[in-house]
C-alpha cells in the first residue's frame, strides 16, 4: 500500500531482485493491501493511524465515521460541510493509490488542493466515481508535520519517515534502514518513538516479515500512514548491506 498524500524518500513497490518473496511471500494480503482494512486493523490494535473519517464506495455502502450514509451527492456535500475537518486526504482503497490520493484543505469555506487550486465538491464527487477500477476510497484526517520538519520546508505536505523493519527468525524486530526525504535535519524528531512504534506494529503483520512503514512525524507523535510488503532497496551506499541482510534473514 502506498500513498495517503505523503512524500516519501524514493520509489517503492518492486522487489528489485532482492529476494523479498522469501520474507513476504508472493501473495497479496488484505491487511496491508486494502486501506480500509489496514486502518481498521491498526486502530483495533491501538496503533496510531490517521483518523478514518469515511469509507466512500461509489457502488454503495459508503458511510462516514459518524454513521452518515454516503450514497449520493447530497450525502457527500453534507459530510464535507458537517463531519469533515478542514484538512483531509482521500485515497483509493486498492490499486495505485498515489494516482488517486487527493489532499484537500478548507479555506474560508472553500476546498483547495496544494498549490491553491479550488476544488468544486460536486466535481470531486464525480471524479471519485469516474474510474471503475477505483470505486472505493478512504477519507482520513490530514496530518500536520512536526514543527521541526515544517520549519525546514514542509510546505504543508506531510513528509513521512520511511522505516523498513525485518522480523528476525528469533522474533526480534530489527530496523533495516530508514530515510526521510528532507535535507537540513541534524536529528529526526521523534526518531526513537517512531522506531518503537514500528517495532510494536511489525509482529501483528506476520508472516509478512519485512514491511516498509511510512510514519508521519506529527506534533502529537509518530503516526503510521502506510505499510508496504513490496519495497525498493534504499538509494546510496547502504544498499549492499540491506540486500545481504534480506538474503540472510
Amino acid at each position, binding site marked *: 500500500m502506498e500513498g495517503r498524500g505523503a512524500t516519501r524518500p524514493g520509489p517503492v513497490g518492486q522487489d528489485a531482485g532482492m529476494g523479498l518473496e522469501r520474507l513476504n*511471500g508472493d501473495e497479496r494480503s488484505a491487511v496491508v493491501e486494502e486501506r480500509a482494512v489496514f486502518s481498521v486493523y491498526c486502530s*483495533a490494535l491501538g496503533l496510531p493511524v490517521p483518523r478514518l473519517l469515511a469509507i466512500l464506495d461509489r457502488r454503495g455502502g459508503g458511510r462516514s465515521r459518524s454513521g452518515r450514509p454516503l450514497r449520493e451527492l447530497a450525502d457527500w456535500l453534507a459530510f464535507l460541510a458537517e463531519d469533515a475537518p478542514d484538512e483531509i486526504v482521500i485515497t483509493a482503497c486498492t490499486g495505485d493509490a498515489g494516482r488517486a490520493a487527493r489532499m484537500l484543505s478548507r479555506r474560508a469555506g472553500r476546498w483547495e488542493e496544494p498549490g491553491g487550486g479550488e476544488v468544486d465538491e460536486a466535481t470531486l464527487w464525480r471524479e471519485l466515481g469516474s474510474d471503475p477500477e477505483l470505486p472505493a476510497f478512504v477519507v482520513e484526517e490530514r496530518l500536520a508535520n512536526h514543527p521541526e520538519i515544517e520549519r525546514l520546508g514542509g510546505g504543508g505536505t506531510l513528509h513521512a519517515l520511511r522505516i523498513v523493519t525485518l522480523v528476525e527468525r528469533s522474533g526480534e524486530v530489527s530496523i533495516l534502514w530508514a530515510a526521510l526525504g528532507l535535507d537540513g535535519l541534524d536529528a529526526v524528531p521523534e526518531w526513537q518513538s517512531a522506531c518503537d512504534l514500528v517495532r510494536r506494529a511489525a509482529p501483528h503483520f506476520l508472516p509478512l516479515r519485512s514491511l516498509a512503514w511510512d510514519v508521519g512525524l506529527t506534533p502529537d507523535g509518530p503516526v503510521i500512514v502506510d505499510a508496504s510488503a513490496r519495497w525498493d532497496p534504499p538509494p546510496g551506499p547502504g544498499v549492499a548491506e540491506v540486500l545481504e541482510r534480506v538474503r540472510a534473514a
Partner: protein
Amino acid sequence: VRTVAPLRIGRELASLARVSRAAARAYGCRPLRAARVARRVRRAQGFTYGEALRVGVLDPAMPEAERARFVSRHANLEANAPLNNGNEEPSITEDKWSFYRHCAAAGIPVPELLGVLDLRGSSWSASGRVFLDRAGFEDMVAHDLPDEFVVKPSNGYEGRGVRSLARHGERLVDHAGRSLLPGDLWDELRADGEFGVWIVQERVHNHSDLVRLAGDASLHTVRVNTVVGPDCEPELLFAFLKLSIGGGAHDNFLGGSAGNAIGEIRLEDGRLGPLLMSRPDRIGFVQLAESPATGERAEGALLPDWPAVRRLVLEGAPRFLPTRSLGWDVALTPAGPVVIENNIRWAPLPLPSMHRVLDRVLEAGRA
C-alpha cells in the same frame, strides 16, 4: 474468435442433450420436454443446464410459478456484484489469515490462529517462532501446537485442502484416518499446486445439541447471510444449517455433491426446517425430518445460542464495509458462536424461497 463460438455452442448443445436425457429418466418425461424447460430457465433465470438438473427445476411436474422463484448462482452473483466490489478480489474475506487477524483485533470470536505457513515465503507460529523450512514446521508441531488443530489454505474455497489433524504420539492423524509425520504434512502442503499459504488454527468443537443431531466427526456450521443496506443498517437475509455428514473435513454443500445436508433456519427464533440432501441420482433433493446421521428429529429443532449468532453477524457486518453482502459461516460451539469465515461469493439455497432474498439484494444494490 471465429472458432471459439462454434466450439462453445457445440459444448452447450452436448450439455443440453445430456441434461435432458438425465431429466427424462428421472422424471419419466420426454427429453424434448425437459430440454424446453432447461432452455427456458437458462434464458430467463441464468441456470446452467447442469445446475438446473441438480437443483431440480427441470421436474415437469413443478408449477411454473414455483420454478420461477428458484435463483441461479449466476443471477445471485450478478445481483451481489454491486454490493461486493464487483465480486473482485482482493478482499479481506478471501484472505483468511488477514481475516482471522482482523477479526481477533476487532473482538469478533474466531478460532485461535496458531500460525501461518507461507511455503514460498516465511512461516510463523503464534508462539513467536519464525521459520522457512520443514525442520521449523516440525518444531512448531512438536512444541507449539495443541493435540488437535486444523490446517487449511488461506485463500481456499469450497472446503478444498481442509485438514483436521490430531496428534498420535509423534505422528498426526487426519480426518480420513490417514497417519503421517509432521514433515510429511509440510512436504504435502509444499507440493500443492493450487495453494501457497496455509493457516493453522484451533480446532473448535460442536455444541452438544449438534453432536446429538449429526455427530462430532467434523464441524457443522450455520450459514447466515447479511446485507448492509443503503442506510448502513445490517440485516439478516437468510440462514441455514450445514451438517457435515458426508465423511469429509468440511460442511460445504457443493450443490449436494459432498454428501452433506442443509436445513433452512427461521431467522426469528433459530428453528430448523426440514433437511435437504441430494437424491442418490444427484437430480433434485429429498426433504428429511430426521437427521440421516443419527435419526434425531431435525425439523422443528431449536438451534442453540441463536440470539448470540444473530448479534454476532449483525454487529460484525459493518466492520467489513465497503463489502456489503456476506455469507457468514458460524460454528455453534460449547463456548458460544465462533465465526469460521465469511464469503462474498455465496450460493443461493435450492429453494423457491430464495426469490425474496434475490429481490432484497437487488433492492440494496439499486439504492
